[in-house]
């Protein structure tokens, strides 16, 4: 019966799409991530994550006219916009990709989108660019840019909720002086002040400096119940925490996503009572994705589920639009990502493709619990943590 259904579905879809344009046997997807540069260790897991979704679709053979999907890698370098633009240009003109998973860091992603993807009408789905500056609320991206990672504007709101629930009404903020740190600190400031909180000082710090005593002195003079450190724990952020503890400036801290890592354990119980949050899928989703991956790569590394989902969304939208032309399928990404429809988790891409072929509707959940809001970005689930004995322990998911 099932076979018959699939057969019928296949027959009707072939008949119905015989006239559709951009329909082909081969689809190419660019994997546009920072394989070299400051986040190369994260990308080593993210790249395989995206390619895992592609091989799953290839195994099913259910995409379009049983098309084979080919992945082509290109390097964003994370920091060099010139190199990133050249790389995506190559993907579009030489490799002829039909969609791009990436980029990774906010700065290069914005440059590649505005200068190359937009003029060429190419769809980009980023798994990890979180800057609020990439939320194109006035359609500056012509509906071509999506992300499976949440905007830091959302993280600012979540941070505010975490702090307000603990009754913390006054904080000092220091952020790493780049697109990520500044975007997050500004988003947090507006959300926190709107909620009635006071920010005593909002000061940047540079990475890799010799001495942070002047930063800590200014933060301590401004005061506050807690110090929010929007930086990187392996660099200036960690040094500022150390200097604050040494001088007795602050005892408790609040850590956004860039600060939560095993490195925090070096402070031991000195930072007990500090809070934080980072984007993470719920425990059930994380467990099922880990089981699905089965050790091929680290499924719980940051932004790996998001990479899988970015690739999956592109292919599902192609199926829904019955075309691999970005101009056709870009409007279908929101449709397959959100309700209504049958819920499709990670590992169920074949099922999703079949439903779409039959003209049905799906609500893609994927590995990270995809729910696209606003101009096409993940609403985001955050894990709220509290430090106990030098370890981050989960309080709740928000």
């Amino acid at each position: 019966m099932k076979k018959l259904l699939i057969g019928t579905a296949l027959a009707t879809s072939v008949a119905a799409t015989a006239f559709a344009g951009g329909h082909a046997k081969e689809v190419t997807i660019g994997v546009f991530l920072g394989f070299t540069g400051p986040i190369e260790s994260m990308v080593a897991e993210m790249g395989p994550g995206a390619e895992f979704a592609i091989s799953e679709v290839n195994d099913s053979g259910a995409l379009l006219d049983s098309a084979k999907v080919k992945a082509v890698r290109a390097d964003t370098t994370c920091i060099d916009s010139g190199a990133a633009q050249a790389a995506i240009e190559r993907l579009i003109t030489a490799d002829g990709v039909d969609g791009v998973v990436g980029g990774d860091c906010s700065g290069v992603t914005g440059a590649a989108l505005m200068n190359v993807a937009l003029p060429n009408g190419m769809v980009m789905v980023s798994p990890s660019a979180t800057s609020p500056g990439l939320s194109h609320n006035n359609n500056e991206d012509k509906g071509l840019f999506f992300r499976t990672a949440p905007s830091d504007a959302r993280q600012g709101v979540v941070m505010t909720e975490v702090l307000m629930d603990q009754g913390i009404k006054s904080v000092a903020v220091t952020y790493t002086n780049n697109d990520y740190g500044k975007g997050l600190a500004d988003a947090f400031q507006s959300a926190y002040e709107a909620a009635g909180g006071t920010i005593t000082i909002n000061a940047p710090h540079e990475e890799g400096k010799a001495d942070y005593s002047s930063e800590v002195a200014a933060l301590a003079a401004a005061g506050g119940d807690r110090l929010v450190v929007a930086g990187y724990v392996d660099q200036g952020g960690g040094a500022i925490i150390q200097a604050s503890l040494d001088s007795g400036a602050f005892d408790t801290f609040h850590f956004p996503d860039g600060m939560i890592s095993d490195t925090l354990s070096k402070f031991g119980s000195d930072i007990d009572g500090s809070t934080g949050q980072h984007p993470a899928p719920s425990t059930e989703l994380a467990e099922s994705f880990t089981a699905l991956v089965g050790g091929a790569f680290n499924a719980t590394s940051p932004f790996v589920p998001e990479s899988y989902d970015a690739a999956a969304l592109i292919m599902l939208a192609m199926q829904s639009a019955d075309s691999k032309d970005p101009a056709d399928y870009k409007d279908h990404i929101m449709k397959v990502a959100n309700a209504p429809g049958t819920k499709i988790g990670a590992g169920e891409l074949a099922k999703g493709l079949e439903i779409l072929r039959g003209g049905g509707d799906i609500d893609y959940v994927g590995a990270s619990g995809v729910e696209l809001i606003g101009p096409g970005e993940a609403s985001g689930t955050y894990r709220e943590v509290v430090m106990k004995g030098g370890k981050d322990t989960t309080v709740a998911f928000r």
Partner: protein
Amino acid sequence: MEFLHAVIVLSNFVIIPAITYGSQLALGALGVTLVYGILRFSNFAHGDTMAFGTMVAILFTWWFQSIGVSIAPLPTALLALPIAIVLTALLLLGTDRVVLRFYRKQKSAPVILLIVSLGIMFVYNGLVRFIIGVGDQRFSDGSRFIISARDFKKLTGLDEGLAIKTTQVITVITAVVVVALLFWFLNRTRTGKSMRAFSDNEDLALLSGINPERVVFYTWLIVAALATIAGTLYGLDKSFKPFVYFQLLLPIFAAAIVGGLGNPLGAIAGGFLIAFSEVFITYAWKKVLTYTLPEQFAPSGLMQLLATEYKFAVSFAILLVVLLFKPTGLFKGKSL
């Protein structure tokens, strides 16, 4: 009482950290200034020489810790320091023999030697990263505080805390001892005098029978000691990361130039000037003024002269002003 609070806040956040940072910079700048004065070139490899020396100290600290040798409450790294100095000296003398001696024989212009030192810098840079890796290493042990902010508050019953770290005291004491020894050596011993003579006028020194290779040998020995001590003290106080040591080169050179390149006294003054100006000018005076001024004058703003992101600009502004009005630096070094 209020005034006492103000003094404690100021010492805790400004004076003590600035003195520590200033001592670290001064020791680094002394090494740079000695090479400039005696060997006549700007040694860009100094930051990475510090990194190398510190790395050796760390490796031996770990070894001592593993076999259970310690000098608690002092950090074990102090025990490893002499070995690190010897190995760093060997590295510097080897470099001099293989690379720099060739250019000295050629009587190359200082700018060529500067570029050569840049090359040496990259080699050291790679060597350190190759051996110990690029990550953060922490190797301080022993007791961390002489008095912590919390204990101070409990002890005195005051509202403000004053923290004094063991490493801060060790840094300042070591710096004083090292500087005193250096000046005694340069001014009182025969070798030190011949080094100064060589620095003042090379031809005259050669004519009076001073062996130049001997002067070079002792210079590298002293530079190795200074660099290793400065690097290890810095690493104990903060943490060791090769990239940060590379970045240290900037404030160290600023300190040496402000004080007057080639003048040891100037290097010390320059180190403290850079450290104090970085912390003082970007300090938010709100708390101090709240304690000292009558209540109705208490400031509501932060009372910060310049935001902290401009602190590098502060040291370079001082550098520019000094070079414009006193090209030889505050203490009459050699002009650039």
